[in-house]
C-alpha cells in the first residue's frame, strides 16, 4: 500500500476527465465538417468492401457519432467506462489503419493515445478502490 496526496490526485483526474472527454467530442464533430483533415483517407478499403454501398458515404459521420458519445460518457459519471470504451475504439482504429498500410506514424500515435486512455481508466479504478486516511 502507498499513501499519496489526495488533492493532487483529484486535480489530475479532473483535468484529464475534461481534456480526454472534450477532445473526442471535438474530433467527432470534425467528422461532419472535415475542418482538421479529410478523414476519408483513414478508412481502410477493406472496411468499405464489407459494407453495403448505401452505408459507405456515412461511415465517417457514424465514426464521429461514436466518438461524440464516447466523449460524452467520459464527461458523465461513467468516466471509467468511457475511458476504456475510447481505448477499445482506438484499438479498432489501429487495426483499421494496419490494413491500409504505410501509416505507421499515425498507428504509433494512436497506440500512445490508447495507453493514455487506458491509464486514465486505471487511475479512476485506483481511486475507486482507495482508502482514506
Amino acid at each position, binding site marked *: *500500500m*502507498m*499513501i*499519496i*496526496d*489526495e488533492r*493532487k*490526485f483529484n486535480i*489530475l483526474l479532473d*483535468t*484529464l476527465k475534461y*481534456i*480526454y472527454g472534450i*477532445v473526442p467530442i*471535438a*474530433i467527432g464533430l470534425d467528422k461532419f465538417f472535415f*475542418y*482538421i*483533415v479529410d478523414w476519408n483517407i483513414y478508412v481502410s478499403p477493406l472496411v468499405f468492401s464489407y459494407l453495403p454501398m448505401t452505408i459507405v458515404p456515412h461511415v465517417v459521420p457514424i465514426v464521429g457519432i461514436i466518438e461524440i458519445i464516447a466523449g460524452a460518457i467520459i464527461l458523465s459519471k461513467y468516466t471509467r467506462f468511457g475511458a476504456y470504451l475510447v481505448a477499445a475504439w482506438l484499438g479498432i482504429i489501429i487495426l483499421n489503419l494496419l490494413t491500409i498500410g504505410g501509416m*505507421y*506514424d499515425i498507428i*504509433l*500515435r494512436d*497506440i*500512445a*493515445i490508447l*495507453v*493514455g*486512455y487506458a*491509464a*486514465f481508466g*486505471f*487511475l479512476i*479504478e*485506483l*481511486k475507486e*478502490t*482507495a*482508502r*482514506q*486516511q
Partner: protein
Amino acid sequence: MMIIDEKKFNRLWTISKYVLGLYQIITNIILFFMFHQKIISNNFILALYIMQTLLGIIILTYAPRLGAYMMAGLLTIPLLITISGLIRGSSILASQSIIFDPANLIIIFAYIMFGLLTELKETARQ
C-alpha cells in the same frame, strides 16, 4: 491523504514510462525514414525532432518527471502553431500534419499525467 495499491500504481507508472518514452523515439525514427527531406530542410522541425528524441531518452533513463514535463511543453509549441494556423486558415501550417496534429493534445496530457504520477510516486509514503 489517500491509500492506494502500490503494486497497481507501480505497474501503471512503468507501462506509461516505457510507452511514452519509446513513443517519441520510435515515431521520430519512422518519420525520419518517411519524410527525411522535409525534416532536414527545415531547421525548426529538425531541432524539434532532435529535442523530442533526447527527451524520450531522458524519460526512459534518469529524469522521467523532468523529461515528461519538458516533452509536454515542447509538444505544446507546434499545437499552438497548428491552432493559430487553422484559425487563420493557413494551409501551409495545417498541412504540416506530420507534427502539427491537434490530436497531440491527448498525448500532451498523457505526458503531464505521467509527470504528475512520478511526482506522486516520489512524494508518497509507504
